[in-house]
């Protein structure tokens, strides 16, 4: 397949001003093609919901955007300028911060050390533990997260509390672009509300753009401005959240399942 010379406008792009643009990004792992040709844009202050089936390539896309792994092909533009993300640190220095699906928390460290991991407050050569402890307390209180002590090891916390800490870590990093990979996965309704609230808060302030990977269409429509659907390594659907519905998204995914089923039942499939 020949990829057309780099277009200045990916599908459905608005005029300039995009904080983040992804153009024709592809990524394979051996024989498995995770991302075929991804085009995506993120406006200033926008909350973009990235939906898709398991294995559609959502997490791979996230790991490319946060600098954890490089794409095989394609370009990433931040504020219109092409960047080559060399590492997570590099992406961070450009204002991209991430909450990973696996949360990237260290069980053996306290809540406040986790919140400042690799961004420690330092009074050289020592850690400024008191400052970090105080800030961690402030941030968590501001978010309304109920954690008895920031000195507790993360191992002792519930799934929801852990998730809240991972989100707090990213939210308070002064990021310009926030990537949230399944931020509500391990949460009950009450804990999810904390995170949803936090995203709404960011939206109100308007200076942070967010990409949220989600499974739950209802939650996604609730907080996102725009919905993108990733299928088979490509963005196949791009609509403002107010112009779509859970029903429409469901239909698309059900159609995909039907196709997959039909493929299996065709004579000759699976060697039958």
């Amino acid at each position, binding site marked *: 397949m020949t990829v057309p010379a780099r277009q200045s406008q990916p599908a459905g792009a608005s005029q300039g001003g995009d904080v983040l643009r992804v153009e024709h990004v592809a990524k394979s792992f051996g024989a498995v093609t995770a991302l075929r040709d991804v085009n995506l844009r993120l406006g200033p202050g926008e909350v973009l919901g990235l939906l898709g089936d398991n294995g559609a390539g959502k997490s791979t896309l996230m790991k490319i955007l946060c600098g*954890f792994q490089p794409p095989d092909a394609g370009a990433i533009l931040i504020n219109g300028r092409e960047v080559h993300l060399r590492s*997570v640190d590099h992406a961070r220095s450009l204002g991209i911060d991430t909450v990973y699906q696996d949360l*990237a*928390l260290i*069980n053996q460290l306290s809540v406040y050390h986790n919140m400042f*991991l690799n961004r420690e407050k330092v009074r050289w050569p020592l850690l400024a533990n008191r400052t970090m402890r105080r800030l961690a307390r402030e941030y968590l209180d501001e978010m309304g997260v109920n954690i008895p*002590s920031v000195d507790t090891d993360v191992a*002792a916390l519930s799934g929801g509390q852990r998730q809240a800490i991972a989100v707090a870590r990213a939210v308070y990093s002064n990021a310009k672009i926030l990537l949230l990979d399944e931020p509500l996965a391990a949460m009950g309704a009450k804990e999810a509300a904390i995170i949803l609230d936090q995203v709404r808060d960011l939206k109100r302030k308007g200076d942070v753009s967010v990409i949220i990977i989600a499974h739950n269409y209802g939650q996604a429509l609730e907080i996102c401005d725009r919905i993108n659907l990733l299928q088979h390594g490509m963005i196949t659907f791009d609509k403002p959240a107010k112009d779509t519905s859970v029903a429409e998204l469901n239909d698309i995914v059900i159609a995909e399942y039907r196709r997959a089923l039909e493929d299996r039942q065709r004579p000759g499939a699976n060697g039958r």
Partner: protein
Amino acid sequence: MSSGGCDRPDCSCSGSVVILLIIYFGVISSAGRSVFFEHADLQNLSVIAAPIMIIAYGEVLLLICGEIDLSVGFIYVFAPYVMHFFVDYYGIPGPLGIILAILVVGGGVGWINGFLTVTLGLPSFIATLGTGFVLSGMTLSMAHGEQAPIPPLLLGLGKWLGSGSNFSQIVWAVILLGVFHMLLRHTRWGLHTIAVGGNLLGAREAGVNSARIKYGNFMLTGMLGAFTGIQIAFQTNVIDTFAGGAAYQPMFYAVAAAVIGGTAMLGGSGTMVGAFFGAAVLAILEGGFEVIGISAFPLQIYFGAAILIAMIANVQLTRLRGEGRVR
């Protein structure tokens, strides 16, 4: 249960230390005399304990970040010879010769260990065993299997390194305990070491440079080994090949001290203070048994049994504590 205090796994050291002390005093009282408080015995203990302690600080860092160094004992034997060559054959002035030997041998072998483990992906258990054998062979062939004298130029420096009094090495061990405790608990380096060992992928996702941490800890351990070896040379007033094999001993003792002191073999947790007491306990066992006249042949039976009892206590106490934690 709120703050850090003693609900952390690394505090499990205290339990085993207590048990070992009970064994120890049990043995002592049965021998009918106090070994612990006589000047000569204390000297003996500190001479045994200090090298174990200093090497153990390095092993604690490595074990916490998920690696181990089995070559450190051979670094310990090799470094004094390199110092001897630097000073006597290459005319490098005394103190510089010592520092260079520590940096070149300790840091260099540590770097190679890091390269084999991190960059080439060998398990550190095997990689460092390999470098250890190579070093052992290098020592024996460089030295032609013979002892060497301390370079005459350096004799004046000995008192700063450990030959001054029989307590000077333990003074070094205590100073380094402070330094390495601060490094582990109160610097980014220590925090990242724990992070890398606790959750390697997570630490890398958070942007921690895990390769740098591991390389660095191998090099620190190597330098501690070289430093200790040079100290021993000054203390015994001769540079010895230890006939190769005996070089295992300080390394195994150091790893044992770290683990008795509550450092997890699987990484993520451990303390310097624990290793300090672990080494003290080993020294008390070894020195104590000798003093009360247990014959040299079965000595290691008691020694091994004591280590096992300590570890069993460690594991069980940790388990009990875990069950007792309400949440």
